[in-house]
């Protein structure tokens, strides 16, 4: 018995199912185009900042000057290197009078939406860095739009990351964020870019799960296959292979489309692609699990919907993981929470793949696959 024949059969079946194909390949394309058009092509300066530097290096005997170079580096990164930030103005204030004047000016700028944030570098900024302790960074934001606050929280990571790379800094920043309440700033379209990075894995996991969850239950002649020299193991294996290949094609489509439409990512888009495939594979595993344990097509559909909703609710994107309380373990054993961390890390923080989360997603997939295999092995199939 040739497994390639079975795999071929799976492809023929998938190919004959027009509606699913549209779901798999057309919807993501449309979404990317829409989002791509809204956000514009290429990197955009999303946020505007002002900086007040109070940085002052103390004079020591063995330290030649009282130059405060680290604040200059930070400011130049904000000004030139950052792809997300625009520097509106900067103030150097070494005494309290200057500081108060600068603060009032920035307060005015923030309130009138000339800037989205103003950052204060404290007196010991450079000193802390030299001493390898955590430097403090204070930024004032408009707290009236909580989603904007979150977006800023994420966006500020970029210059910080660039800064740390620039000076080889190991310590973390201690960030303090006093919220000031003004009107709602209008950066919705920028937010879409953040959303897209999270929507894409949801689409992948949802569509692959949907396709795979029907692969066993909807195949009427499957029990009859077992009255040929076909082994159950080969049947489930061929379904895993075929659905994984389709998923990879889908992830590739998304990868190519997003590269073309300029998805904003600080980190490597290839890593992003890997995460898409990883989460897609988990979708295939969960789909097979659903298909193996469901008695009927209708049952599989209901279970799919339930699983999908649960996965989204506990993905950490709808509700932050900390707010889940006792249900947090659910987020840990579901794939999307790990994927969303991976994706924000890559696209917004420019970090490499976090292997712990990769490992988690693989383990989750494996567990679902094993349950699917065992359930299918014991499933009563009668003709």
């Amino acid at each position, binding site marked *: 018995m*040739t497994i390639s024949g079975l795999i071929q059969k799976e492809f023929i079946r998938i190919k*004959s199912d027009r509606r699913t194909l549209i779901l798999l390949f057309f919807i993501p394309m449309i979404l990317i185009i829409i989002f791509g058009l809204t956000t514009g092509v290429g990197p955009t300066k999303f946020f505007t900042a002002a900086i007040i530097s109070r940085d002052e290096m103390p004079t020591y005997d063995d330290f030649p000057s009282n130059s405060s170079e680290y604040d200059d580096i930070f400011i130049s990164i904000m000004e030139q290197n950052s792809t997300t930030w625009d520097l509106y103005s900067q103030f150097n204030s070494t005494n309290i009078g200057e500081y108060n004047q600068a603060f009032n000016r920035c307060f005015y700028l923030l309130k009138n939406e000339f800037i989205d944030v103003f950052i204060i570098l404290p007196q010991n900024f450079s000193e802390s860095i030299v001493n390898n302790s955590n430097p403090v960074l204070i930024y004032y934001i408009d707290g009236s739009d909580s989603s904007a606050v979150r977006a800023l929280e994420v966006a500020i990571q970029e210059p910080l990351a660039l800064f740390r790379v620039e000076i080889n800094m190991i310590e973390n920043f201690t960030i303090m964020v006093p919220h000031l309440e003004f009107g709602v700033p209008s950066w919705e379209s920028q937010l879409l870019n953040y959303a897209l990075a999270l929507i894409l894995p949801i689409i992948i996991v949802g569509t692959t799960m949907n396709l795979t969850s029907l692969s066993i239950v909807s195949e009427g002649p499957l029990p*009859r296959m077992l*009255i*040929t*020299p076909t082994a159950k193991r080969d049947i489930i294996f061929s379904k895993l292979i075929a659905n994984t290949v389709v998923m990879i094609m889908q992830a590739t489509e998304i990868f190519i489309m997003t590269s073309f439409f300029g998805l904003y990512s600080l980190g490597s888009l290839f890593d992003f692609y890997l995460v898409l495939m990883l989460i897609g594979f988990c979708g295939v595993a969960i789909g097979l699990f659903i298909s193996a344990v469901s008695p009927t097509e209708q049952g599989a559909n209901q279970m799919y919907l339930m699983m999908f909703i649960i996965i989204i609710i506990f993905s950490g994107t709808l509700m932050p993981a900390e707010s889940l309380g006792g249900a947090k373990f659910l987020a840990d054993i579901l794939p999307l929470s790990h994927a969303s961390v991976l994706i924000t890390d890559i696209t917004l923080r420019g970090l490499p793949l976090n292997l712990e989360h990769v490992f988690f997603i693989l383990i989750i997939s494996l567990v679902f696959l094993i349950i699917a295999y065992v359930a299918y092995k014991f499933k009563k199939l009668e*003709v």
Partner: protein
Amino acid sequence: MENPDISNNTMVLVENLDVVFGNKHIVHDVSFSVEEGEIIGMFGISGAGKTTIIRVLTCQIEKKNWNGNVLVTGLSPSKRGNHSKILSNIGYVPQLELLNLYFELDPIVNVEIFTSTYGMDKKKAIITAEKLFNILDIPKDTWKKRVKRMSGGEKKRLSMAIGLIHHPKVLFLDEPTTGVDASKRYDILSYLKKLNQQLNTTMFIITHDLEAALICDKSAILREGKLLEFDTPQNLINSLPSRGLVARISIENLNQEIIKTIQKYPSIEKVLRVGNETIEVLMEDFEDNLPKLMKFLFENELKVYSMSRDVANFRRYFQIRIQEEEEKENRKNRSELMNEGDSP
């Protein structure tokens, strides 16, 4: 090879088969054998255990649930290692086409899918398929259209073609004529006969459609898991009193009492009520006794509308045989009840 007693031509051998699921004893001590080229019909009312027997023969029931000596194309399904060999030697046509065909694909692709499960060469399989399609009169313009669009009868025939695609030695068919309208039923039976003659395929049909006996070389009658008879339909009919000659009599105001009166006539073997006012009567020495019976009816002042003579068909035989078995069982139950009453 495994059993020196049986000839090379024995396709299916079943000796003392028992099937037990938990505390349910489904099949009791069934034995029969099927020779190459034969068409076997296994008849029995619903729940008799027909499907269960086929499932043993097609390696679908675990060994722990059955006992006995079973050989299919010379191999025993009791050994797991034999399964894939047995399954390539046999073909199977399930009762529902939905379970045998990919409706969203066309017949040729269906053929390709199933041939790949046997590891066959695709081109050769297509040639075989076209030959089968032609024998079965599956119209050429449907070969490349979705199975969904085919008529019920065409689907059924396609299903049979797929069961035969790998040149199996034995073809098992589960209720091939159930759910098909009367005229099509005869079509299907004659197609099966045609395939049997042209390909010399042994066929094992389970059904409660008694018309299928028309094409069967041997009939098995199963009741509550016991094999009552296994012989050619003609032999079975001949075993009836007077070799199955029956008198069909219509009587005015026929009722249970009248039937009892008729049963009192000495050489009567069986009285079957076959219609509202019609009975069929089986007797010893039919030719001698028929005039005497008519006289008896007149003497008892029964008004006879009509009388005709006929030979029992398999349907009638089946009815008689099952009835006989039921009466035997009732008598047994009654005597058991009485015995229980006797001993405190």
